């Protein structure tokens, strides 16, 4: 007999539904519904009291109307009235209406709460369950306030029926999710955890969801659940399929509960208790073994249930990431599934493998499946599965297979579903950048990307390729050649024109030698695309043209003619018109020199995190690209990301100065150094500023090498220091505290002597300095960037704190007036008396349009500026090295390079530090050794340095000894 009798339903309801179903049109249906709504409304409003049956019938009709998508704005009160009925059927329909139609803000909640309170205390399990369901469905804050105290009591009470316990557990979970502050588990914790041991499997099933959620929020309090979960799991896994009676699903014992137990365990690290862990490993092995057994049933439900457990077990193994043996088995199992005929299993295997690929132990094992995965990408019929395959290829990509994977993804892009193209494009762009060993491959890949899926290439992608080409001069010629060829295609994507315009404008000269790509040919090619492009692209092309005039004077007349044409100079678009007019004027008035300055090659871009990664992350939502991946991308991609710096700023070299009690990172650790007599300084040449010569930016190579600076408060408290410096004029206010970024600005100059120290909208400060022995001279150039005078311009250099006795700084007064656009120079003389760790402060004050400007910077004077390089032979070096064996004479630091290391860059950095780089001294050619003497007035300190790059791990142990 069916549990639900079909015959005794409500006839009125059946008739109404049949009417609706017989409606021929949407209009007829709406008409019928409106008629019914009016009828119900009048019945509810009528004088005659409705009996329970009628109320029930009308509420059912309203439910049906609601399901069809019509708003129901009445009937709530009738539903609430049904709650207080003594009849089960009426009460039930009342609760149903409320759980479907009442939202948590409803004003009715107070009335509903009253009814629930009555039912909860009725001790009738059916009514209690109905009430608990209602709380779980609505889950409003008012309900949490009313019942959060009561429900845990019901849950753990000894005399509560199992079915009520189940409902209470999930009801509590719901309240905890909506109002965690109101659900205080404290005293109930241990009794709730012990529900895992309950006789009734249904209770365990419900309780485990609650426990999992609570464990995620307070792992420590619920720690005891681990051992209980393991033993429960062990009992299920080892039971014969008949032991659990009704919880056996198609011959699989309690699959749902097993999955949930395995999920719960994923909230915790592997159990510390050896016995528990052993038992768990046994369970996991049993589950893996069962996968190999012949199926007990041919039904798909059997294999689904079995595999549901298997996948959760594999997730747990991956989560632990500590049992290589299990990891390998998991990987093999997933490998089998990759080829399984069930699409669901292939899908899940691809998904699980994605997480497995990030495990150190199994990354290689995952890689062995590359062909299968590529095949899946090509042949799967289901886009969901193809997408997972693309995700997995992305996850398993590393240097060894990047070319293959990128090529496959590119070829898939040609036929890829539109829904996933943009994401694929971002992935290809990221992989190409991250694993580019040679940049011509990178440029090829991105240009192919634009060619194949130009519409899906976002701005971030083509900006990035330009940044990289600008920053890497070894690829510029190739890039120019390649875009030139790509532009030959009769139809090319506008993004290609943008990249082409930019690159030829910058580097067209590199391919101009070939008559096939002579300047005029290049120009004509670009200009042939001009009319098909949108305004922003045209604007970009105009800039490329004016750059051409500078690169190739012979194209001047042709380009001027183009600029002069009405379609440019009178273009209706203001931006285009302005560019045409200005460029035309510029090209005819400016001398070659001026033109060359204005249109100089773009300077390298500052290093920044690839915006593409951020975009992919945003696209996929949080969690899709893990933070690890971002960091990894930064590390591995360093070679490219840091293109501008040539991977130079790769290290935070933190050294601890063993000779002083403080762990301060004294740059050269020379505080305790006795005067040196040996190691005579070689002829004191000025330090070579490798970086400014090489024309590359660099910053922060020695970020952490920087002497620690005291807090700015104490600096200020010391007041103006060395009074030898001439305070140029009256100061109307106290000097401003140093700019927050001043430390960073300072770091830029550890290894270089010239550059821009500071720049804002008003003022630019350039710096040039030279050092000899313990003396230095610094030229500061103050440039007024505005068109308005700076008046009462004054600067003060102070040595805060003990720096007064360590450094002698004298500054010449500076003109109090700087005209708009003008630059004034100031000379500062520096004498190093003894070692120091702080930097002198430069305070600048002036009035700009009446407003007082007051800013304080740190002058980039660091101890290494007073290094004299010292040459010595291998024998001498190691003899001295060994002599420096006292603990306070030596400091060693191992650190991870932020970027791939380039020998030349490292050399340049070390030279910039001021020591002599000793060639052929260290037997290992990979290592760098340096020697130098720090010259101060009081003493000379010899220092030796050894840098041992370990390429495989990117670790750079640095050894330093000093005398």
């Amino acid at each position: 007999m069916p549990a639900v009798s079909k015959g005794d339903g409500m006839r009125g309801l059946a008739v109404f539904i049949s009417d609706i179903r017989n409606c021929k049109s949407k209009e007829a249906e709406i008409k019928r519904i409106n008629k019914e709504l009016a009828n119900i409304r009048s019945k509810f409003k009528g004088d005659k009291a409705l009996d329970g049956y009628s109320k029930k019938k009308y509420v059912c009709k309203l439910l049906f109307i609601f399901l069809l998508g019509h708003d129901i704005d009445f009937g709530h009160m009738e539903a609430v009235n049904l709650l207080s009925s003594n009849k089960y059927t009426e009460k039930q329909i009342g609760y149903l209406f409320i759980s479907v139609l009442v939202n948590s803000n409803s004003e009715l909640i107070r009335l509903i709460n009253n009814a629930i309170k009555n039912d909860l205390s009725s001790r009738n399990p059916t009514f209690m369950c109905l009430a608990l369901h209602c709380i779980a469905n609505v889950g409003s804050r008012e309900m949490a306030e009313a019942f959060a105290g009561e429900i845990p009591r019901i849950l753990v009470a000894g005399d509560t029926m199992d079915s009520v316990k189940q409902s209470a557990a999930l009801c509590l979970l719901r309240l905890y999710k909506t109002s965690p502050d109101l659900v205080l588990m404290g005293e109930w914790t241990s009794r709730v955890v012990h529900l895992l041991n309950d006789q009734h499997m249904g209770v365990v099933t419900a309780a485990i969801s609650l426990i999992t959620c609570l464990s995620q929020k307070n792992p420590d309090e619920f720690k005891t659940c681990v051992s209980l979960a393991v033993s429960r799991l062990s009992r299920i896994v080892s039971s014969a399929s008949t032991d659990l009676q009704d919880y056996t699903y198609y011959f699989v014992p309690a699959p749902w509960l097993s999955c949930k137990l395995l999920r719960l365990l994923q909230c915790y690290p592997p159990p510390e208790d050896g016995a528990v862990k052993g038992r768990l490993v046994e369970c996991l092995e049993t589950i893996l073994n069962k996968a190999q057994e012949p199926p007990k049933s041919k039904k798909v439900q059997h294999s689904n249930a079995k595999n549901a457990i298997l996948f959760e077990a594999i997730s747990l193994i991956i989560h632990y990431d500590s049992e290589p043996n299990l990891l390998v088995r998991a990987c093999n199992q997933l490998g089998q599934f990759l080829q399984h005929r069930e699409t669901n299993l292939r899908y899940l295997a691809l998904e699980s493998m994605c997480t497995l690929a990030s495990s150190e132990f199994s990354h290689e094992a995952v890689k062995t499946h590359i062909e299968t995965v590529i095949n899946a990408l090509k042949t799967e019929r289901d886009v969901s599965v193809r997408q997972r395959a693309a995700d997995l290829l992305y996850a398993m990509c590393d240097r060894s297979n990047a070319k293959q994977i990128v090529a496959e993804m590119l070829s898939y892009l040609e036929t890829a579903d539109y829904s996933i193209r943009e994401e694929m494009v971002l992935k290809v762009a990221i992989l190409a950048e991250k694993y580019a060993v040679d940049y011509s491959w990178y440029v090829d890949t991105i240009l192919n990307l634009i060619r194949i899926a130009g519409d899906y290439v976002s701005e971030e992608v083509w900006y990035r390729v330009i940044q990289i080409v600008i920053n890497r001069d070894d690829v510029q010629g190739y890039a120019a050649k390649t875009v030139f060829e790509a532009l030959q295609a009769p139809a090319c994507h506008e993004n290609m024109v943008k990249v082409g315009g930019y690159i030829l404008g910058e580097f067209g000269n590199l391919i101009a030698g070939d008559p096939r790509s002579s300047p005029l040919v290049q120009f004509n090619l670009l200009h042939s695309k001009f009319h098909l492009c949108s305004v922003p692209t045209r604007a970009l092309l105009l800039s490329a043209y004016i750059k051409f005039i500078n690169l190739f004077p012979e194209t001047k007349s042709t380009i001027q003619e183009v600029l002069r044409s009405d379609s440019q100079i009178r273009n209706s678009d203001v931006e285009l018109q302005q560019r045409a007019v200005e460029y035309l004027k510029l090209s005819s008035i400016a001398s070659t020199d001026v033109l060359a300055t204005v249109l100089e090659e773009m300077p390298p871009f500052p290093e920044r995190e690839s915006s593409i990664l951020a975009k992919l992350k945003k696209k996929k939502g949080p969690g899709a690209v893990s933070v690890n991946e971002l960091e990894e991308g930064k590390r591995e991609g360093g070679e490219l990301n840091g293109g501008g710096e040539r991977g130079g700023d790769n290290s935070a070299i933190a050294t601890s100065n063993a000779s002083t009690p403080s762990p301060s990172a004294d740059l050269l650790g020379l505080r305790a150094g006795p005067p040196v007599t040996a190691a005579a300084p070689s002829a004191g040449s000025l330090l070579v500023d490798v970086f400014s010569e090489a024309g590359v930016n660099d910053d922060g190579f020695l970020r952490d090498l920087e002497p620690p600076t005291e807090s700015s408060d104490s600096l200020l408290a010391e007041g103006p220091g060395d009074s030898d410096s001439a305070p140029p004029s009256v100061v109307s206010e106290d000097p401003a505290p140093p700019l927050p970024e001043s430390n960073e600005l300072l770091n830029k100059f550890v290894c270089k002597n010239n550059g821009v120290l500071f720049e804002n909208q008003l003022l630019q400060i350039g710096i040039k300095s030279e050092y000899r022995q313990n003396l230095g001279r610094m030229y500061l150039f103050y440039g007024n960037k505005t068109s308005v005078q700076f008046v009462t311009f004054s600067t003060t250099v102070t040595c805060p704190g003990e720096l007064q006795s360590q450094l002698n700084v004298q500054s010449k007064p500076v003109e109090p007036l700087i005209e708009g656009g003008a630059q004034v120079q100031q000379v500062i003389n520096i004498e190093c008396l003894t070692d120091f760790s702080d930097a002198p402060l430069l305070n600048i004050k002036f009035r700009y349009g009446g407003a007082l400007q007051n800013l304080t910077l740190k002058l980039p004077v660091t101890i290494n500026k007073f290094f004299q390089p010292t040459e010595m032979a291998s024998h001498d070096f190691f003899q001295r090295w060994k002599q420096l064996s006292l603990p306070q004479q030596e400091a060693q630091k191992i650190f991870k390079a932020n970027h791939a290391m380039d020998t030349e860059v490292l050399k340049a950095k070390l030279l910039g530090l001021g020591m002599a780089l000793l060639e052929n001294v260290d037997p290992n050619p990979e290592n760098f050794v340096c020697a130098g003497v720090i010259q101060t007035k009081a003493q000379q300190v010899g220092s030796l340095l050894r840098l041992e790059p370990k390429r495989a791990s990117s670790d750079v142990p640095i050894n330093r000894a000093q005398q």
Partner: protein
Amino acid sequence: MIKAILIFNNHGKPRMSKFYEHYTEDTEQQIIRETFHLVSKRDENVCNFLEGGLLIGGSENKLIYRHYATLYFVFCVDSSESELGILDLIQVFVETLDKCFENVCELDLIFHLDKVHNILAEMVMGGMVLETNMSEIITQVEAQGKMEKSETFVFQCPRQDR
């Protein structure tokens, strides 16, 4: 957790919808339409999982569905649920409906919407699974049926139309 359970037919007519998170009525209808659109265009014999539509949370959520004759059963779940486990749950739900209605068909769902809700309530509560054991669920449903009968019998409700 389960965000929503939707049943609609091959033409997208909703036959039951149950949301475990609050959406406006309008959004609920849109979610049903969007889900139908996503699910119905898929071939038979492809996999039973796909990323959720934008309205219900995009790729954070998965749609897990089964297609039985004229009806689609779709569960929208977050990442904390096992895909195959939910697939089994759908099977349990359908088998239970089949037992309760004896060879369940679309019409049973239409005319006994309240009962379908009651059966589902025995399995899923507030988006979490309450009970997976079919005989336990059926026992509860039968007990309710008995109570209903006894009440109709005792009080002899008049059979009035509309």
